C-alpha cells in the first residue's frame, strides 16, 4: 500500500463509525419519516399512500392549531424573555455592577443541570393547590380558604409552563452572553469612556452592535429548543387540561404512541422540522438586515 493510499484509508476509517451511526439513526429515519407522512400506516401491513391527507387533517385540527399557538408562545418567551433577561444579567456581571458576581452566576446557571422531568414535577407541586404559592398567598392575605387550581384552568394552565421555561433557561443565555462579552476588546470601551460616552451610549453604539451575531445564534438555539419542548410539559401537565397545554411534539407523541397513527404522527413531526427551518431562515433574514444597519 502506498503512502497516499494509506492516508486515504485512514481518513475513511476515522470517519466511518460516526457516519455509519449518523446515517442509520438520523438521515435514514428522517427520509423514512417523510415517506411515512404520506401514508396511513398504523403499525402493521403495507403502508397505504394517501398523499397529503395527513397534513390536511392536521392543519384543520383545532387541537393542532392550539398546540401551534402554544409553541409560538414558547418561542416568544424564549426570544423576548430568556434572551433579553440573560443578556441583562450577563451585562451586569460583565460590567461588575454587583459584588459577588461569581456567586450569583453559579446559582442562576444551576437549573440547567436539573432534569426537565424533575423541574416539572417540582414546579407542579409548587403551583398545586397544596403547594408553596397557594400557601404563601394564604399567609400574606390572611384568607385561609384561598385556592387556585391553575392546572385545571384551560386558559391559565400554560402560564406556569412559560414561567418555568424562563426559570430554567435564562441562566443558560446569561452564561453564553457573558462568555461573549468577555471576548470583546476592552480598549474599545475604555476609549469610549475617555471620550465621555455614558453607559447607555456604550450599550447602544458599541456593545449591542458587536453582539448581533451572538444574539442571532442564541435565537436559533431558542427557536429550535422551543419547538423541541416536550419533556417539561409532558411531565408537568401531559398536555392537559383537555389538550390546552399541548405543543406539537406532544400532539405527535399522543397520536403516534397512544392511537398508533404512525403516518399521521410522522406528518406532525415533519411540520416541526419545517417550522424550525422556516423560523430560522426568517431570523437569519432579520439579523442580516440588522447587521447591515449597524455597519
Amino acid at each position, binding site marked *: 500500500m502506498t503512502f497516499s493510499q494509506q*492516508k486515504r484509508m485512514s481518513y475513511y476509517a476515522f*470517519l466511518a463509525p460516526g457516519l455509519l451511526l449518523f446515517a442509520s*439513526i438520523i438521515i435514514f*429515519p428522517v427520509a423514512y419519516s417523510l415517506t411515512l407522512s404520506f401514508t396511513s400506516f398504523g403499525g402493521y401491513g403495507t403502508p397505504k399512500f394517501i398523499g397529503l391527507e395527513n397534513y390536511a387533517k392536521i392543519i384543520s385540527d383545532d387541537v393542532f392549531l392550539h398546540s401551534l399557538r402554544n409553541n409560538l408562545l414558547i418561542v416568544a418567551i424564549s426570544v423576548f424573555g430568556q434572551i433579553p433577561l440573560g443578556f441583562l444579567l450577563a451585562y451586569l456581571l460583565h460590567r461588575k455592577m454587583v459584588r459577588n458576581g461569581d456567586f450569583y452566576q453559579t446559582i442562576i446557571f444551576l437549573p440547567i443541570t436539573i432534569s426537565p422531568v424533575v423541574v416539572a414535577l417540582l414546579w407542579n*407541586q409548587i403551583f398545586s393547590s397544596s403547594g*408553596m404559592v397557594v400557601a404563601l398567598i394564604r399567609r400574606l392575605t390572611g384568607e385561609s380558604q384561598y385556592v387556585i387550581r391553575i392546572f385545571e384552568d384551560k386558559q391559565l394552565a400554560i402560564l406556569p409552563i412559560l414561567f418555568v421555561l424562563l426559570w430554567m433557561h435564562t441562566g443558560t443565555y446569561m452564561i453564553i452572553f457573558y462568555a461573549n462579552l468577555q471576548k470583546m476588546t476592552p480598549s474599545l470601551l475604555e476609549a469610549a469612556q475617555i471620550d465621555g460616552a455614558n453607559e447607555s451610549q456604550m450599550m447602544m453604539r458599541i456593545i449591542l452592535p458587536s453582539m448581533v451575531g*451572538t444574539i442571532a*445564534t442564541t435565537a436559533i438555539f431558542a427557536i429550535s429548543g422551543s419547538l423541541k419542548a416536550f419533556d417539561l410539559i*409532558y*411531565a408537568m401537565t401531559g398536555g392537559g387540561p383537555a389538550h390546552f397545554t399541548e405543543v406539537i411534539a406532544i400532539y405527535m407523541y399522543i397520536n403516534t404512541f397512544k392511537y398508533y397513527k404512525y403516518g399521521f404522527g410522522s406528518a406532525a413531526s415533519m411540520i416541526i422540522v419545517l417550522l424550525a427551518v422556516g423560523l430560522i431562515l426568517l431570523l437569519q433574514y432579520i439579523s442580516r438586515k440588522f447587521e447591515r444597519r449597524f455597519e
Partner: protein
Amino acid sequence: MRKRLTLASVLSSVLMIAFTLLTIIPLAWMILSAFKPHALIVRYPLALPLSWYVDNFVLSWTQGHLGIYFINSTIYSFVATLLTVFFALSSGYALSKFPYKSSRVISLIYTLGLLITVHSVIVPLFIMETKLGISNTRLGVILPYIAFGLPFQVFLATTYIKGIPDAMQESAIIDGATFFQVFFRILIPVATPIISTMFIYTFLGNWNEFILVLTLTSDLTVRSLPVGINSFAGGMSRDYGLQFAALVIGTVPMIIFYLVFKDKIAQGFAAGALKE
C-alpha cells in the same frame, strides 16, 4: 464614576438577588418537604420538618425501583458519552487534518444534523428497533444517544483540532508513525481540554434525556432515572413525601456534578454560540 453608578448598582443587586432566591427557594422547599410525611406536606406546606423523617427516601428508592434506574442511567451516560466523544474526535481529526474534498460535504451534513430533533425520527426509529429486536434493550438506547450527540461534538472537536499546529503530526509521520499512532499518541493528549468539555457536556445531556427512553423502552429493567421519577407523578403514588424524596434523589447528584464541573459545562454552552 462610583457615585454615578450607585442607583444602577443597587438595582443590579436587587435583580441578582431576586433571581438567586427564585432558584434557591424552590430547591430548598423540595429538600425540606422530602423529610416530611405526606399529611404534613399537604396540611402545612410551609412548615419545617418536625424531625428528619427519612422513610420517604427508603420507600421511594425501593418502591420506585430507583436503584435499577440509577444503574441504567449511569451505564447509558458513561457508555454513550465515551463513544460519542471518541467517534467525534476521530471524525474531527479526519475533517480538519486531511485534504479531501468530501470533508466539506460531511461537515455540512453534521451541521444540518444540529437542526434535526429527536421527534422527527422517533417514529421510524421505534419501528426499526422493533424490527431489529433491539427496542427495550440497553443497546437500543445507547445507539441513538451517540447519533444525536455527534453533530455538536463533531463541531467542537473539528474546531479545536483545526487549531492544533500541523508540524507536530507531520514530523511524526515522516518518522514513520501511522495516522492511528498520531491520533492516539499525539492528538488525544493535546486535545485533553476540549475532551473534558465534550465529555461533561454530553454526559449532562444523556443523564437528563427523557423521550428516547420513554418511547424505546417499556421494561423497568432498562429504563432510566428521569423516566422512573416521572412515574411518581399521577398514577403510581399519590404520596407527596415519596415524590419529593424521588426528586431530591434525582437532583442532588446533579447539583454536586454541577458544582464540580460548572466551568466545563459553561464552556460547552458558550462554545455552541461562538459558532460564526
